[in-house]
């Protein structure tokens, strides 16, 4: 696996931040938006030039989203020891999720979409697929490549799709994940919806004021069990499910129908009872709507809700990359048999009374559920299991 986020440029750096409860969200003012220095953001502390240098990439039209994706992808390849042959095999697939794609270049997109540009550099980079096509081109990948955009559950659906490609014989290996970068477009979009907090987010807290946007990328390398026999394996993806809340374009139903259905479906596929889930990496954005609906859904399904926390108070909400980052964190829960506190929480939401974990702890972790719920009612649940 490979990852880059506001809390680290590698799996070990991210792990270190989680253990030390260090958030990557800050009010620093070095983002080209009116809201920089006003709204907390979780920025990756490498500039585009830094990323290009580290990756040795000189392509002119490459966007920040693509650079973050390349960075995490390369880390994942190295961690999995994938060779050039592996990458160019027609049975190696790539599936990624993104919501911003090349729209991180908000000003350039505005200029070019009006026909006012003279610079053709980015014309083919604005769409979503450009991120993963960029990786495909770079590594000359010949297998199935796909891009998914289901808002905040994009990379969860990418991971699920990758599992199914292997299960149905369309690939032997799949590199799955997602990437999103901070952009004026999304900052203003979420601000227009009034769901950005002007303070660090506090998921599941009764005084939560909204989410903080973040950026990042993460990839997992997936293989069939029989192909992974003599290799280092972190975990198994034992369950997954996708459902739709079918309530409103940008908010969840009161009882969290979509979240309930996808969690229930993932458990069924994994052949697990609710009480076998040791920990839930919640979607937990810190918005009034999500955290309450998600809480209700967890209560409705689990009765005794397992330990849970949101890692978005560390990384911010990285939109299309969120589920991929959280997949890595779920795997860390399993690898190190530990869970990390839900930072910022002080008081439970009154109507649900649910309390996330308030301190790190070492504990037996066999099964972790990771949930992601997006606009358009798109809800996906993944279950990672210890081997």
């Amino acid at each position, binding site marked *: 696996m490979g990852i880059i986020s506001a809390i680290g440029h590698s799996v070990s750096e991210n792990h270190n931040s989680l253990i030390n409860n260090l958030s990557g969200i800050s009010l620093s003012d070095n983002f080209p938006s009116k809201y920089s220095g006003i709204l907390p953001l979780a920025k990756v502390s490498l500039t585009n030039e830094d990323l290009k240098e580290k990756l040795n990439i000189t392509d002119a039209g490459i966007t920040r989203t693509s650079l973050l994706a390349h960075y995490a992808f390369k880390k994942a390849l190295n961690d999995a020891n994938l060779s050039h042959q592996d990458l160019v095999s027609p049975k190696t697939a790539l599936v990624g999720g993104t919501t911003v794609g090349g729209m991180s270049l908000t000003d350039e997109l505005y200029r070019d979409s009006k026909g006012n540009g003279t610079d053709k550099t980015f014309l083919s980079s604005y769409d979503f697929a450009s991120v993963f096509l960029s990786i495909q081109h770079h590594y000359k990948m010949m297998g199935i490549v796909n891009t998914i955009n289901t808002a905040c559950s994009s990379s969860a659906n990418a991971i699920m799709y990758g599992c199914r490609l292997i299960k149905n014989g369309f690939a032997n290996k799949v590199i799955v994940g997602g990437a999103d970068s901070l952009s004026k477009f999304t900052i203003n979009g979420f601000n*227009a*919806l*009034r769901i950005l907090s002007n303070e660090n987010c506090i998921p599941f807290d009764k005084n939560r004021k909204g989410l903080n946007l973040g950026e990042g990328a993460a990839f997992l390398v997936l293989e069939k069990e029989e192909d992974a026999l003599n290799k280092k394996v972190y975990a198994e993806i034992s369950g997954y499910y996708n459902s739709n809340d079918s309530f*409103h*374009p*940008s*908010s969840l139903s009161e009882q969290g129908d979509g979240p309930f259905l996808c969690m229930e479906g993932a458990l069924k596929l994994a052949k697990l009872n609710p009480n076998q889930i040791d920990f839930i990496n919640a979607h937990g954005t810190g918005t009034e709507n999500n955290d309450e609906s998600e809480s209700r859904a967890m209560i409705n399904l689990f009765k005794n809700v397992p330990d849970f926390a949101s890692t978005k108070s560390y990384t911010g909400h990285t939109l299309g990359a969120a589920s991929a980052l959280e997949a890595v964190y779920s795997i860390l829960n399993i690898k190190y048999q530990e869970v990390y506190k839900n930072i910022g929480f002080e008081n439970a939401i009154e109507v649900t009374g649910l309390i996330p974990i308030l301190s790190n702890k070492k504990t037996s972790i066999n099964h972790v559920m990771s949930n992601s719920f997006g606009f358009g009612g798109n809800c996906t649940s993944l279950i990672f299991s210890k081997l």
Partner: protein
Amino acid sequence: MEKEELKEQLKGQIIKFLNLDKTTDQIKDDEPLFGEGLGLDSIDSLELIVLLQREYGIVIQDPKEGRKILVDVNTMADYILNFKGTQTL
């Protein structure tokens, strides 16, 4: 501006802003904007808050406070007149 004139103007602005399939005389002054009545939703309430800022200079920071003003055309007109009234002090 007189209240009646303001309400008529407001109805026209609401229709245009929210792309409603209605004419101004199809919207009653006391018809609830949300729920029964016009049946607007949470996104509409945010859009109306923007309308109030762009057309009348009224800034509403908290959308929940906004819902207290956005009950029907009457309450919106009252708020606008009150706001303009305080502006001239």
